[in-house]
């Protein structure tokens, strides 16, 4: 028991000092002292969870129906381009019914060639040996392309990783904020943004797919039919809520003339009337195409379509050759700005729905920290007082251990960049209460051994040895439940589990090893004859 070599004492002291040192940046964060902390010292500190720092937690899920539709549309464009290439294959309208693509080959001798070219378009998937589309022929002249399940999964996965990058660019165009954007479970994206002032703007930015398309207006469509939602072959009816002509619908040619994929930049600006608009710049290919299309269609209206809604359909007054254009519509400065950010960050490959939101304002977070810190302090003092009146000198040791434990928990959390949440504060307080359990076990055992008539040194030694078994087993049960919590829990609950886990481990060090050293040093120094415990 007394055998506590000097080097061990130094190691224990070193650990304790390191704990205090590492926890300082977290303790002074947000106070004026933080700016006076020398820059050459450690700066890693505990992250505050969104419930304490304020901020938005959003869980986004890919809209499966939209994903399928988008994929069919993209495939349709691809097919149509392929069939137009030499040798051209004449086909009827491409149908997208029932989640499949099909078309009638007009010349029966070309069916095989069409199937062959469709097969070439489909991609083999890694590992599985399947292809992403099945190509078959029905009624001897109709070619059908069916998406395979594996292909759909792969497409979704690809779309999600693009979507993740797009979301990040939209929320944080400058790339400087500490935001979290990660994909989860194949079709979800978790977004955590600390310190959001307007969560609605955040959601608007993410919620917009921002698929920008320019299509020609179908001037031959019968207005009566358009209102009924019917369009001539090769055209489609789209909503046009701000149509100055009055009808909330408009027929446009299906063919995409130019798309937002070919933009290099988008900025909020003003049109010649001073109304908010968006200035866009095309890349070289886009500029060339935009120039050609506008050249060929001077005098005709050109529909600007965002996410399948027509924003406006201005007349092409003259060819636009410089690759710069302006999107007009009924915008406010804010909505024009949001759309510009969305366009500049690229379109989302799939529509994202917000399926979970948790937003806390910074004020409420501060209030929580304040209350939590006060409760922690008072709770700690209550426990300390109780320890002192119950165990006297040994209560002092337990108290020192408790305080050191508090520092060590903070230090370990800071070291690993762990996140402190509101339930985490509760975990901290609970750990304060539960950490002394080890000392209670030891001290009660020492009392017991003294009652049994053991000599002081013997009693202390037996106390520490016999109590350790129970301390170990009891802490393992804590570790099991906290690990399961950390594994299954989300956000704040995980924060609680992390504090419990760290607290259990550090408390074994402080309550068993550290106090034993204090006791050993005291006995060695004073050689007490009896123990007041």
């Amino acid at each position: 028991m007394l055998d506590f070599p000097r080097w061990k004492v130094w190691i224990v002291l070193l650990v304790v000092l390191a704990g205090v040192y590492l926890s300082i940046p977290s303790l002074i964060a947000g106070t004026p002292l933080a700016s006076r902390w020398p820059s050459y010292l450690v700066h890693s500190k505990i992250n505050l969870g969104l419930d304490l720092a304020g901020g938005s937690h959003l869980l986004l899920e890919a809209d499966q129906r939209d994903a399928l539709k988008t994929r069919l549309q993209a495939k349709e464009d691809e097919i149509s381009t392929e069939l137009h290439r030499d040798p051209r294959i004449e086909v009827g309208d491409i149908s997208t019914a029932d989640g499949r693509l099909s078309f009638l080959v007009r010349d029966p001798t070309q069916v095989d060639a069409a199937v062959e070219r469709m097969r070439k378009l489909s991609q083999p998937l890694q590992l599985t040996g399947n292809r992403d589309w099945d190509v078959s022929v029905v009624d001897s002249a109709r070619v059908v392309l069916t998406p395979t399940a594996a292909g759909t999964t792969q497409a979704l996965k690809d779309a999600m990783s693009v979507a993740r990058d797009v979301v990040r660019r939209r929320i944080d165009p400058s790339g400087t904020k500490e935001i979290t954007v990660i994909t989860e479970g194949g079709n979800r994206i978790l977004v955590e943004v600390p310190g959001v002032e307007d969560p609605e703007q955040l959601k608007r930015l993410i919620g917009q797919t921002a698929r920008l398309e320019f299509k020609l207006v179908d001037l031959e469509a019968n207005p009566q039919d358009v209102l009924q939602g019917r369009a001539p072959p090769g055209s489609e009816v789209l909503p046009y809520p701000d149509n100055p002509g009055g009808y909330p619908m408009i027929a446009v040619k299906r063919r995409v003339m130019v798309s937002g994929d070919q933009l290099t930049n988008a900025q909020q600006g003003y049109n010649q009337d001073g109304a908010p608009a968006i200035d866009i710049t095309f890349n070289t290919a886009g500029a060339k195409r935009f120039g050609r299309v506008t050249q060929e269609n001077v005098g005709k209206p050109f529909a600007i379509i965002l996410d399948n809604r027509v924003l406006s359909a201005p007349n092409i007054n003259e060819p636009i050759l410089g690759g710069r254009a302006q999107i007009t519509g009924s915008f406010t400065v804010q909505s024009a700005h949001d759309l510009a950010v969305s366009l500049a960050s690229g379109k989302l490959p799939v529509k994202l729905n917000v399926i979970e939101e948790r937003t806390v304002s910074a004020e409420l977070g501060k209030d929580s920290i304040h209350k939590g810190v006060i409760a922690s302090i008072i709770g700690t003092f209550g426990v300390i007082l109780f320890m002192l009146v119950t165990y006297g000198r040994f209560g002092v040791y337990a108290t020192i251990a408790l305080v050191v434990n508090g520092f060590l928990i903070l230090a370990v959390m800071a070291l690993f960049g762990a996140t402190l949440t509101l339930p985490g504060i509760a975990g901290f307080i609970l750990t304060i209460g539960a950490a002394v359990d080890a000392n209670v076990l030891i001290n009660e055992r020492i009392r017991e051994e003294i009652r049994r008539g053991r000599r002081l040194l013997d009693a202390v030694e037996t106390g520490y040895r016999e109590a350790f078994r129970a301390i170990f087993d009891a802490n393992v049960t804590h570790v099991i439940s906290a690990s399961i919590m950390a594994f299954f829990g989300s956000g704040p609950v995980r924060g609680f589990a992390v504090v419990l886990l760290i607290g259990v481990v550090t408390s074994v060090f402080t309550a068993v090893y550290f106090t034993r050293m204090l006791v050993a040093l005291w006995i060695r120094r004073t050689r007490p004859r009896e123990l007041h415990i």
Partner: protein
Amino acid sequence: MKLLKLVPDHTNIDFMRWRNIAVILSTLLTVASLAYTFYRGLNLGIDFVGGQVVRAEFARPVQIENLRARIDSMGVGEASIQALGNDRTYQIRLPRPSGPETAANQVVSKLRVAIPQQFPGARVDAGESVSGKVSEELASEGAKAIIFAMLGIAIYIWLRFEWQFGVGALLTLAHDVSMTLGFFAFTQLQVDLNVVAAILTIVGYSLNDTVVIYDRIRENLRKYRKMAILPLLNLSLNETLARTVVTSLTVLIALGVLMAIGPEVIFGLAIAIFLGVLIGTYSSIYISAPVLVWLGVTPDSFIRVDEKDDKTTPGAQPA
């Protein structure tokens, strides 16, 4: 200075004398708790049933009826409104709208815009929405976590002690969890993710107590091989009683403070653990220990399995 001794030296309470009554009572209470929980149902928060909650702070005091009328007129469902400490801060909960998964979130957006319009100077401090799909996942994950934690701990006890102790631990846990659920069904306090965390903590804590007692029982079984099981359990319980009382009190002090003055968001968590500590302390004495008697733990059975390899003189084993 005279030190505080809550449990006097040489305390000798005949705990096991009331074990039959205690176990019958506990069983009845457990069954009643579960039955009541099923009958009345838990007041599940939006984490588990989906829906929306916003917390708003108003510039001027607002009558709850006035607030309710304004929200009713928005056509977002029947609001349940709770004042948080004063008449300027309210928590408004709305049922999950039917429709697509995004519908829940759109309600939050609507309130966030509408409240400051209707009540100038009002501020929406927190907004949460959970869709149906997410809430189902959270509920099933929460349930899984509790069951895995209980099984995991029981298996650990089985490995470290004996199978009887593992069964005892499992029954103790089942008792504690059922009683906690019963409490939440009775008080209709809201059950959210934090309460699941609390139940998991209780599972860990209650076993902490049980393990300490089991450890002493094992020690005494080895020490007093001739002692009958009931006196031995009594002895072990009395020997660990002081520790049980002191530890439970420290935890209760810490949590009591948290409950009284801590942030209201974690009140459910604090009260659940507080209660769980009380129940856990009781059950570690009156469930964990008596179960061992019924499962036939005797000094014999323990030694035979545990110390088979230690036998140096097999004939010297007590019969």
